[in-house]
């Protein structure tokens, strides 16, 4: 099988996996139990399909087997009337799904809302979605999130127990709660993407970026009227379009302004622009749309030869009003340096200069270092660049900063 065919097969399998798991777990809220039942169903399929042939509707077949396992497990645990009623209900539901095999209800969105519920620890939402919707193993997720596999495994088990014990509902929130709750889902998916974007040259991380985009498309397809879902997908596609342009042929770091636009993926940029237009049709509403718009202003360089810095600054103002995030202020300063010069940019950073969160934040020192260097404040630039070097985890970025610091000494 070619790589493309293998990936295509994987996508189909994953589409079924998430769909079946969401359906199985929706009523019981027992995600771990549903996973076990589904795993047994897949194992039976591996045994019986080669002998008896692939059934006409593989999903319905898998669902029937998994449901039987699930009811067996419930019977073993409880013999009460309530249990029987529960099983009765599940059996009827299963039969309905079996007779209309194409109509296995898609409960993946409800499952994602459960995984990103406020009762679930924020850092575990993305791993939980990756495992339940895509069927990724704890080992793969651990590798992408750079934590030990056993730790990730324990945390996933705990998070699933929490869904069951706290009776977290599997449903799509009502209109008034939807925006907030959807943001938790989008944040989880974007966190997975961000991991996959930062770790360069790491296969597990690159795959994670792909998975996150796949999840982004899924949310857009399930909630086509939500502008923020489109905004987030657009944001991921803008970043993805520039993936290969971030390093030169020697593997050295290339900052956004210096990237060769011929290395940008035009197709992905066009897709992102189209999504952003659709998202903005009703006016900008949220963080992801604005961040996507900032990316759009950056890549305007393809057409006009230079990024639209005025728009970038204006958009960061909107973002800052919305999030009050020091990171937004920092990025705004980098853009402001292009329109009003480095001194104005440095002055704009004063309000967060003493913020403890910035002390260990690599981009803070890197940006400060560049701004001080441009403003001719050599000593401060040297110190900031040194700290940025010490805080870098990426080899290429570290080398780039060392070169910047050397230039400072020579120039």
């Amino acid at each position: 099988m070619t790589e493309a065919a293998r990936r295509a097969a994987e996508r189909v399998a994953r589409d079924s996996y998430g769909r079946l798991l969401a359906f199985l777990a929706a009523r019981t809220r027992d995600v771990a139990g549903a996973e076990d039942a589904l795993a047994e169903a897949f194992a039976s399929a591996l045994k019986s399909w080669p002998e008896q042939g692939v059934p006409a509707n593989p999903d319905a077949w898998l669902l029937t087997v998994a449901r039987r396992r699930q009811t067996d497990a419930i019977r073993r645990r409880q013999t009460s009337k309530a249990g029987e009623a529960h099983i009765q209900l599940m059996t009827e539901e299963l039969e309905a799904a079996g007779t209309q095999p194409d109509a296995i209800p898609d409960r993946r969105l409800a499952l994602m809302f459960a995984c990103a519920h406020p009762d679930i620890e924020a850092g575990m939402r993305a791993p939980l979605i990756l495992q339940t919707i895509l069927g990724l193993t704890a080992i793969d997720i651990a590798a992408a999130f750079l934590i030990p596999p056993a730790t990730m495994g324990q945390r996933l088990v705990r998070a699933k127990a929490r869904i069951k014990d706290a009776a977290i509902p599997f449903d799509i929130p009502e209109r008034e709660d939807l925006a907030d709750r959807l943001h938790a889902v989008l944040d989880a998916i974007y966190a997975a993407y961000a991991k996959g974007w930062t770790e360069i040259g790491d296969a597990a991380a690159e795959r994670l970026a792909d998975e996150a985009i796949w999840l982004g498309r899924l949310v857009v397809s399930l909630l086509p009227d939500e502008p923020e879902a489109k905004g987030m997908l657009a944001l991921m596609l803008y970043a993805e379009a520039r993936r290969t342009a971030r390093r030169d042929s020697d593997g050295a770091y290339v900052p956004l302004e210096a990237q060769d636009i011929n290395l940008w993926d035009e197709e992905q940029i066009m897709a992102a622009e189209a999504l952003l237009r659709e998202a903005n049709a009703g006016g900008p509403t949220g963080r992801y749309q604005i961040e996507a718009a900032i990316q759009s202003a950056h890549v305007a360089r393809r057409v006009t030869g230079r990024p639209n810095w005025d728009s970038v600054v204006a958009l960061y103002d909107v973002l800052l009003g919305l999030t009050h995030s020091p990171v937004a202020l920092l990025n705004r300063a980098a853009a402001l340096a292009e329109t009003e010069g480095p001194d104005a940019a440095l002055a704009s950073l004063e309000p967060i200069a003493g913020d403890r969160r910035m002390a260990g934040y690599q981009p803070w020192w890197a940006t400060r270092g560049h701004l001080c260097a441009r403003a001719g404040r050599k000593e401060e630039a040297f110190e900031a660049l040194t700290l940025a070097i010490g805080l870098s985890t990426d080899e290429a970025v570290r080398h780039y900063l060392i070169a910047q610091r050397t230039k400072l000494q020579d120039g």
Partner: protein
Amino acid sequence: MRYMMIIHHDDEAMAKAPQKELWAEYAAFNQALNKAGEGFSGGLRLSPGKQGTIVRSRAGKTDVLDGPYADTREQLAGYFFIDVDGIEQAVEWANRCPSSKYGAIEIRPIVEQNAP
């Protein structure tokens, strides 16, 4: 959570590393550690394991031997302390340490004295 970050070095790999660059990176790393706040402390570098001395006292008899403690390719070479929220940030600090490229960083949570 406080962690002791233990640096294990492969001396051969270290000897082959570009020394000037390596120690410049170490200077930056230590500066970042010192700036990171209370609970962090810059690394100390230890002399090679074979220059160590091993002492064992058993039933009133004391043995004094030449090092290293364990005859392994990678030897304890230094350490530093961090105070972070959890293992994710600890891994990030390990990744920042220039020695992670030439040896290994062992992350060990410190057992707090006042813990039950």
